């Protein structure tokens, strides 16, 4: 197993409050790592540390480092880093443009001029996100007209279109109905073959369904990490057990 992303002694703060404490964590290539935990446990902070979206917050401070293929993410320029580490947000965030423009947006901005090539990317990405069959006849329609589940798969397609290596899912199904959730999870399992996936989720069952390994975060600390089956069947820590049994969170 190749180490794709490694966090070493990572500490993060927004203002004075620490949101991630002494995190040491390795994500292997081509695995789905589920991160579960109640809100305010530092899951999203860790994700946004990887693609440096935290930089948008002026109060953000960090100590320690996160590496991507052995290189500190702060040694890469943000454009390259974010191209390599795509992100799918909690709420579907289509840009206010057509379906086609949404998916083609990344490649176009990255300087691909050939319309034919972008057409190919759009089709390939929409197929990979299992949305192609539903939208192929109305690519020019506004992305805002799609249903929530379709919008979220559109966002996945948009992320795939810039050909990342890692996909960071930040509670991707929190606003979706069970059927849409199932579709998003299906695409995730399909994408695992080519990408490294980190799935932050509030939904414990979702982590148990799709992830290879699962980590449990609580109040900024990683309490436990292990193979998903082991963690769910025989958690080592009482707090993990309590959380997956639904006692708090």
């Amino acid at each position, binding site marked *: 197993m190749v180490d794709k992303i490694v966090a070493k002694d990572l500490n993060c703060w927004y203002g004075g409050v620490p949101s991630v404490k002494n995190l040491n964590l390795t994500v292997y290539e081509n695995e789905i790592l589920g991160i579960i935990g109640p809100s305010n446990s530092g899951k999203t902070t860790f994700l946004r540390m990887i693609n440096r*979206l935290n930089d*948008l917050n002026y109060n953000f401070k960090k100590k320690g480092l996160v590496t991507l293929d052995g290189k500190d993410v702060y040694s890469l320029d*943000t454009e390259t880093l974010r191209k*390599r580490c795509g992100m799918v947000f909690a*709420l579907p965030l289509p*840009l*206010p443009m057509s379906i086609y423009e949404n998916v083609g947006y990344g490649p176009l901005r990255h300087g691909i001029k050939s319309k034919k090539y972008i057409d190919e990317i759009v089709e390939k990405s929409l197929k990979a996100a299992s949305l192609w069959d539903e939208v192929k006849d109305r690519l020019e329609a506004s992305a*805002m007209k799609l249903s929530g589940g379709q919008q979220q798969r559109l*966002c996945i397609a948009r992320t795939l279109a810039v050909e990342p290596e890692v996909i960071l899912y930040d509670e991707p199904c929190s606003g979706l109905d069970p059927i849409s959730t199932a579709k998003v999870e299906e695409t995730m399992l399909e994408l695992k073959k080519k990408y490294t996936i980190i799935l932050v989720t509030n939904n414990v069952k979702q982590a148990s369904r799709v992830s290879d390994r699962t980590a449990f975060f609580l109040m900024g600390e990683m309490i436990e990490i292990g193979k998903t089956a082991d963690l769910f069947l025989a958690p080592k820590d009482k707090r993990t057990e309590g959380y997956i049994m639904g006692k708090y969170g």
Partner: protein
Amino acid sequence: MNPKTAQKIAFSLLFIVTLLIIVPVLLIVFIIVKEGASAISWEFLFTAPKDGMRAGGIFPAIVGTLSIVLCAIAVTLPMGVMAAIYLNEYAKDNLLTRIIKLSIVNLAGVPSVVYGLFGLAVFVMFLKMGVSIIAGALTLSIMELPVIITTSRNALNSVPQSFREASLSLGVSKWQTIRHVVLPNALPGIMTGAILSIARISGETAPILFTAAAFYVPHLPRSVFDQVMALPYHLYIISTQIPNMPANITYGTALVLLVLVLAMSLAAISMRIYFRKKKKW
């Protein structure tokens, strides 16, 4: 008092006060049209004044006002929008930014006649532009900067942060994000600021008094360094400085100014509608 009656009285009072706002608008339009409509003719619109302003037309003043307003907007809109983008998207909250923001607030509070004197000192005398379209336009554009900056900042601010994050998360650069996601969605709001500014600039007299406006120029401006007649200043002259002025010419001039402002605003509004249609949320 019974709460239902109290509610009815409160509602009626608020409604009547709101209704009163229509009255001055209707009266202004009614009086100006009634008194001035008889002056409007082909000759009035397209020839120069004659007989010491008492006859002929106001064509040089129309052209003068149009050229001053268009020049001023051409300067102030890009400058204001660029400053707004910097302040809203790039500026960190430090001392310099706070000084800039304080300056903008203070610029907005300066009386327009002070802008006129400033324009006279800086553009007309120091930069040797003379009394000219360009000096007047620059003076007006500085006066309008705070309005444009403030409305543009509000427009940029109303574009959801999540759009920026979605774009940035794809590895798209910050400038491309601003150029292709933030600006297109802020344009309708920015246009609203521009519309308000056009209307205000067109009617201003004090800032162009010493910087651009001439009492009488029979010909049309040949370059931006020429003095021009301007409608608001012309209106001031004919209503106060010239004895035995036919009233319908005075009101006719006011009517033309009103229609001109309306026409320019309508042009800007139709652009705003166009941009809004392109916006898909």
